[in-house]
């Protein structure tokens, strides 16, 4: 064993995780683990008791995130994490509910719940881990797959324009909108802590490498290459007009804008309730 690093058996964050389930099922170079890690780190720093955090996810690689965090956690059906979470968050407003899922789950099949929860200003923090494809089923295109990108369902290149998710989130009323990448764990952590303590519908898009489903067919290579791509191209611009935040991955030199784009006060959705009568 090398000198310098002390070999141990557990990580300080293990208490925030279902450590007995590690290692997780995700591929080497996948960024989802980093998001889970940053999320639990933010939980510890949020000032909100761990027991009052709830995590809800849908289906797909990112949907598996809920299975690794040591809070009440619910791994639901494809696309339905947001209405499921709405049930928890509106019935128990004292709980802090975070939805962690992927681009396919949240914005393909789950797109309607996304726009309605934002419109209603439901008290949810929604993390969309965007790896530009359906990883769990082996790399098909989705609504964030860039133009021209190769995938198992776009063998000649994707010919659909992807969503600009921050712009969409703003158009439907999110109180907080940010975009970071897995590389920006420090900014992501700060964004998470800030968003956990806000009202309304809060949305963070997190760009993440997927070497298996996206990197490989698009000649990006492994996870670290995708990360270096982010390092090279990301531009922080918190004040940018969100009409400009499309991601055009096929233009290798175009900027990818990241930042804390929207941060407004908007009270959380609270259905009319006099008091709970149990």
């Amino acid at each position, binding site marked *: 064993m*090398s000198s310098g690093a*002390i070999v*141990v058996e557990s990580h300080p964050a293990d208490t925030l995780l279902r450590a007995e389930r590690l*290692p997780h099922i995700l591929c*080497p170079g*996948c960024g989802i683990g*980093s998001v889970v890690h940053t999320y639990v780190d933010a939980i510890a720093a949020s000032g909100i008791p761990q027991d009052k955090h709830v995590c809800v996810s849908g289906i797909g690689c990112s949907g598996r995130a809920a299975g690794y965090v040591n809070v009440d956690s619910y791994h639901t059906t494809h696309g339905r994490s947001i209405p499921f979470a709405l049930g928890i968050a509106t019935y128990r407003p004292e709980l802090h509910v975070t939805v962690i899922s992927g681009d396919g789950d949240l914005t393909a099949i789950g797109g309607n719940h996304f726009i309605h929860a934002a419109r209603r200003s439901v008290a949810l923090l929604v993390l969309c881990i965007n790896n530009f494809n359906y990883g769990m089923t082996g790399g098909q295109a989705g609504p964030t797959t860039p133009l021209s990108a190769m995938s198992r369902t776009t063998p000649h290149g994707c010919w659909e324009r992807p969503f600009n998710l921050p712009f969409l989130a703003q158009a439907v009323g999110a109180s907080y909108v940010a975009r970071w990448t897995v590389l920006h764990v*420090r900014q992501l952590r700060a964004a998470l802590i800030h968003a956990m303590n806000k009202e309304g519908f809060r949305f963070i898009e997190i760009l993440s490498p997927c070497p298996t489903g996206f990197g490989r067919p698009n000649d990006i290579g492994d996870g670290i290459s995708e990360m270096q791509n982010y390092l090279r191209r990301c531009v922080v611009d918190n004040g940018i007009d969100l009409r400009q935040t499309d991601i055009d991955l096929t233009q290798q030199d175009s900027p990818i804008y990241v930042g804390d784009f929207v941060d407004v006060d908007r009270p959380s959705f609270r259905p009319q309730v006099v008091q709970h009568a149990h």
Partner: protein
Amino acid sequence: MSVHTRVPIDAASMQVPRGQVYTIPNRCKGCNFCIQFCPKEVLEFSEAINNKGYHFPIVRKGKEEQCIHCRFCDLICPELAIFTRELESAPAQGA
């Protein structure tokens, strides 16, 4: 751009902390994030492989005292296989 730190205004006057690297080699899947993005280039791959067959991070020869406990390797690790702790003073323990 830098993703590592937001430089504080009084950076020059601050004392840089020192850190100790800890690893859980058998969790590592060799993604290379910690090694590539360590701001002090403290880490490198081991020659040995872990029980899943991956090379894992170790501290480079000569870099044992360079860790500044910035936590970047920790936070970015998808496998929770590495972390650092702040050292009160030199030298690093267990090196």
